[in-house]
């Protein structure tokens, strides 16, 4: 059963893409422009966040990969946009996404960039900070790519490599190197990472972007 069937017409695809872009922009507005509202604020959030552009160009690339069996003129246009967008991501975000990474809902990707994501999927409502690496591993583990669940908070400088799962609502503290899967709601820390707390509610962490400095100061 497909929850999100492929859009049949160009109008449907465009409608879904624009709707997703505004949902992302509202999420970024809530995080980066707290205390402001209105269309002007939304416009500034849409234009001023490099992470939002990274996410948007990744969504175009994911559309190209998932629709690669039906090559319409729209597909070729999306492919062109993805080519330009990935150059933009390299130059301005220093980031790279593998195009087949599935991002379902709104996700925050850091504006500071240095993000390489080879994950298989990232769940809705996750916050991913700068200088993170997700991908397959060749040393110290097997081959494979990680799954990242919903409402996950991932601090800066984290490495998640190999076929492991980060459960829903988990918290990965800054500077962690994950070698095992993380159960839902757990807090992990360290290099190699260990579980320091279970059943932790990270909703306060996910509400603000400045809290990462306090967390990094506590755990450095």
């Amino acid at each position, binding site marked *: 059963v497909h929850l999100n069937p492929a859009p049949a017409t160009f109008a449907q695809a465009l409608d879904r893409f624009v709707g997703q872009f505004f949902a992302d922009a509202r999420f970024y507005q809530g995080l980066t422009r707290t205390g402001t509202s209105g269309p002007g604020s939304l416009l500034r959030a849409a234009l001023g966040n490099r992470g939002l552009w990274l996410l948007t160009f990744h969504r175009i690339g994911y559309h190209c990969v998932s629709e690669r069996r039906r090559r319409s003129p729209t597909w070729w246009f999306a492919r062109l946009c993805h080519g330009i967008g990935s150059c933009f991501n*390299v*130059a301005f975000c*220093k*980031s*790279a996404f593998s195009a087949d990474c599935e991002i379902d809902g709104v996700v925050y990707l850091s504006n500071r960039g*240095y993000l*390489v994501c080879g994950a298989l999927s990232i769940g809705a409502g996750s916050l991913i900070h700068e*200088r993170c*690496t997700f991908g397959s*591993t*060749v*040393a*110290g583990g097997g081959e494979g790519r990680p799954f990242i669940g919903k409402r996950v908070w991932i601090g800066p*400088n984290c*490495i998640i*490599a190999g076929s492991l799962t980060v459960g829903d609502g988990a918290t990965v503290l800054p500077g962690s*190197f994950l070698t095992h899967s993380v159960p839902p709601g757990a807090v992990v820390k360290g*290099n*190699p990472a260990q579980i320091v707390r279970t059943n932790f509610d990270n909703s306060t962490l996910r509400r603000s972007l400045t809290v990462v400095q306090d967390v990094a100061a506590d755990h450095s």
Partner: protein
Amino acid sequence: MNSEFVADVRRFADKDRPSQGFWRLLLGNYGLQALLAYRLGRWLLRAGHKWYLWPLLPVGWPLYYLLSRYVRAAFDIRLELSADIGPGFYIGHFGAILVRCCRIGSNCSIGRLTAITPAAHGPGPVIGNCVWIGAHAQIVGSYRIDSGATIAAGAVVRRDVPDAALYLGDPAHVVMRNYDNRCFL
């Protein structure tokens, strides 16, 4: 240009699809562009000692300057000319790579966000042949890493690495002895 860069190109061709031509390989691999700038700079340094190559220097140095600035601005890969990198160097990914004042042997690989630099004042690290260094690895200080060692992703080297083993963690410690990294190097 020189045999070291040819070895680099061979290394990248082995890692990537081997059938594609040189120009597609160069355009598709940011690490190779960084290495092109670095090898050009090292060649110009050596060419300064030969008087019959002096006419090339006024063209070569501006070209090196443009190339290295482009690589640094676009991909943030910094291979400084004070580093001595052996033939067959492989850079897996772009982003925040700093290699300075060190000696690296042949056929090494490094990942992204790695720093191979000396501490504030002092000699830099010395790295042997066929060493694999993962992403986020930090080798800061005058440490010696012997041939065949594997520094896992995220490892922070705080003392010498004397044998061909897998090192992991902060500070880096031995996880597996006699670790063979030839299958992914």
